[in-house]
């Protein structure tokens, strides 16, 4: 049973997507898992022959429980039975330690929440999009942390960071990114931005090229003018579950990912004092009338940094065609994914990100 996010302690194995005897490759969707936060397909982290489905559909299992056994055909059934019999769910880090992994940094841009994972390797900073927070990287942060020192933070006006924006613009948010890097003592980093966060990363790279090692831009704002005004306006104005849910359907290719918890968590965020004003200011300055005001494509191309552009082919917020507006970049358009491609096709995106970061 995978662990998605700090608060997950157990999950429901909704259903298997593969039969015993299937040869599995890395990235194959092997089962559906649902937690109190999210429902998603689990992608195989290892390749091999699925010899035994241990977990039963519809049952609840703790994180790290044994759900299936991969083994070559040469391994006998008795040996597999013995392995299952002997398996014990490994002890996880205790609750207190997990909690401490959300930290707060007092910066010149205000108090910012962040998560830090991984020890060695290059510094990587993940920057979420408009209305998002660091949990948008739920399926990416741990995978990247195996080979890098990864920071994900909440931009001002977002998540659990300060809700006041000194300057509601891409440049203003880029200033907050710089303030965050200073606060956590990171000189230069590989920047990974999603949507508005990609424009923030690009803007920062233009102003401080020496502090940026590479750019990975996912479903990026800032590469063209079009943006779905219905989505932006709907997200800003929605006050209730009934208003917000249809808006969120724009984010994913698979509409079943927009479940009750996702809607509830976003409503909880939107109800906090100051959030409404912050979102209104940002929307009015960045995307008035469905036109992006900050287009950075030429500026990014001129930097000559290793640049990756990733898009979900079914993006309904920013057209995937914008991926081709950046000469010299590595471009990857992924089928079966929408605007939140880093959640919907996490394994593929993680592989691409590590490719760009590690060179």
């Amino acid at each position, binding site marked *: 049973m995978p662990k998605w996010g700090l608060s997950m302690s157990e999950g429901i194995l909704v259903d298997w997507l593969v039969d015993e005897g299937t040869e599995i490759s890395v990235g194959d969707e092997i089962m559906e898992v649902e937690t109190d936060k999210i429902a998603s397909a689990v992608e195989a982290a290892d390749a091999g022959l699925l010899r035994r489905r241990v977990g039963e559909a519809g049952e609840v299992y703790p994180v790290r429980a044994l759900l299936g056994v991969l083994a070559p055909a040469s391994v006998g059934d008795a040996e597999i039975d013995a392995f299952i019999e002997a398996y014990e769910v490994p002890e996880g880090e205790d609750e207190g330690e997990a909690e401490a992994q959300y930290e707060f940094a007092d910066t010149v841009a205000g108090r910012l929440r962040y998560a830090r994972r991984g020890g060695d390797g290059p510094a990587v900073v993940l920057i979420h999009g408009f209305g998002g927070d660091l949990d948008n990287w739920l399926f990416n942060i741990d995978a990247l942390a195996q080979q890098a020192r990864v920071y994900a933070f909440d931009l001002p006006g977002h998540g659990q960071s300060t809700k006041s924006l000194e300057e509601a613009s891409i440049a203003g948010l880029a200033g907050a990114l710089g303030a965050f890097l200073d606060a956590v003592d990171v000189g230069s980093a590989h920047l990974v931005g999603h949507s508005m966060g990609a424009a923030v990363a690009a803007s920062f790279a233009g102003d401080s090229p020496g502090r940026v090692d590479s750019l990975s831009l996912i479903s990026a704002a800032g590469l063209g003018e079009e943006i779905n005004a219905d989505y932006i306006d709907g997200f800003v104005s929605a006050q*209730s579950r009934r208003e917000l849910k249809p808006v969120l359907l724009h984010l994913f290719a698979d509409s079943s990912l927009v479940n009750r918890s996702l809607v509830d968590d976003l409503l909880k965020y939107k*109800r*906090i004092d100051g959030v409404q004003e912050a979102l209104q200011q940002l929307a009015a300055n960045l995307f008035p009338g469905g036109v992006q005001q900050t287009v950075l494509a030429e500026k990014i191309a001129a930097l000559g940094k290793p640049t990756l552009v990733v898009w979900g082919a079914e993006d309904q917020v920013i057209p995937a065609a914008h991926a081709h507006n950046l000469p010299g970049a590595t471009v990857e358009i992924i089928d079966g994914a929408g605007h939140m491609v880093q959640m919907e096709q996490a394994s593929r995106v993680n592989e691409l990100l590590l490719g760009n970061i590690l060179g």
Partner: protein
Amino acid sequence: MARKLSMKDAINEALDQEMSRDPTVIVMGEDIVGGSGSPGENDAWGGVLGVTKGLYAKHGDRLMDTPLSESAYIGAAIGASTCGLRPVAELMFLDFMGVCFDQIFNQAAKFRYMFGGKAETPVTIRAMVGAGFRAAAQHSQMLTPIFTHIPGLKVVCASNAYDAKGLLIQSIRDNDPVIFCEHKNLYGHETDVPEESYTIPFAEANIVREGGDATIVGYGLIVHRAQEAADTLAKEGIDCEIVDLRTLSPIDIDSVVESVENTGRLVCVDEANPRCSIAADITATVSQQAFGALKAAPQLVTAPHTPVPFSPALEDIYIPSAASIADAVRKTMAP
């Protein structure tokens, strides 16, 4: 940042944050400071159950211990609200409303209407409701339906700490009189509560659990009993959806109807006495608006039509239980 907080502490934090934010917010009631002038610990008791503890030390004279006269201080709070303050008056037990009927029903609820919209009454009246506290018939009633009957009043009853904080802040900022009901047996109940101020809009029910077989509607303590019932029923293969109303006036009937259109079955649960209860009201509205969707007769689970008994054994069976809710759902499932 969110952390676990009891409903009692969440209410205290909402009052504290609104008093800090808005100098027109004042708090008044019997013993809410702790008996001003009495020495030692008594001076900081903060209400009969300590909900307002610590606020006097921080906000001083903006908290007022009133005489034992609900008629006088509820009237004073309503009057002050028409003159620019935002009073939060604590009626202690909602059962005591009888002596301030006129002030609430005939004055506060009518001003906006009778003065052609020129007068506003931004007063919040907090009061404990509900049985199970061994406090006998005069301190245990669920009198919510009496208030929902009156146009001009808003009525809130939270089921958890997160909702209590957001709904109380919304109540204080609202420009109409709000009756804010606090179930005394939920004061110790903890949920994640953000440190920041936030508001939950009125008439936005919470879908506590999604399910396709039957809709259980309730508010306050009942929501927890409904969850127990739903857990039991899930093991029998019955998937319940639970709608926590949060506010009773205005009421989010659309969410209830939408749910019933999906499940085809309705169980309304109410700790109030059955005649003219919230449960009866919802059953009537849904029967009218979604008659075609109903696969079975709606079921009502309420307290009996008796005063709340003082005998602990009787009081325990007076409040709708998880078992009685589960039985009602099974009845709707019967072929």
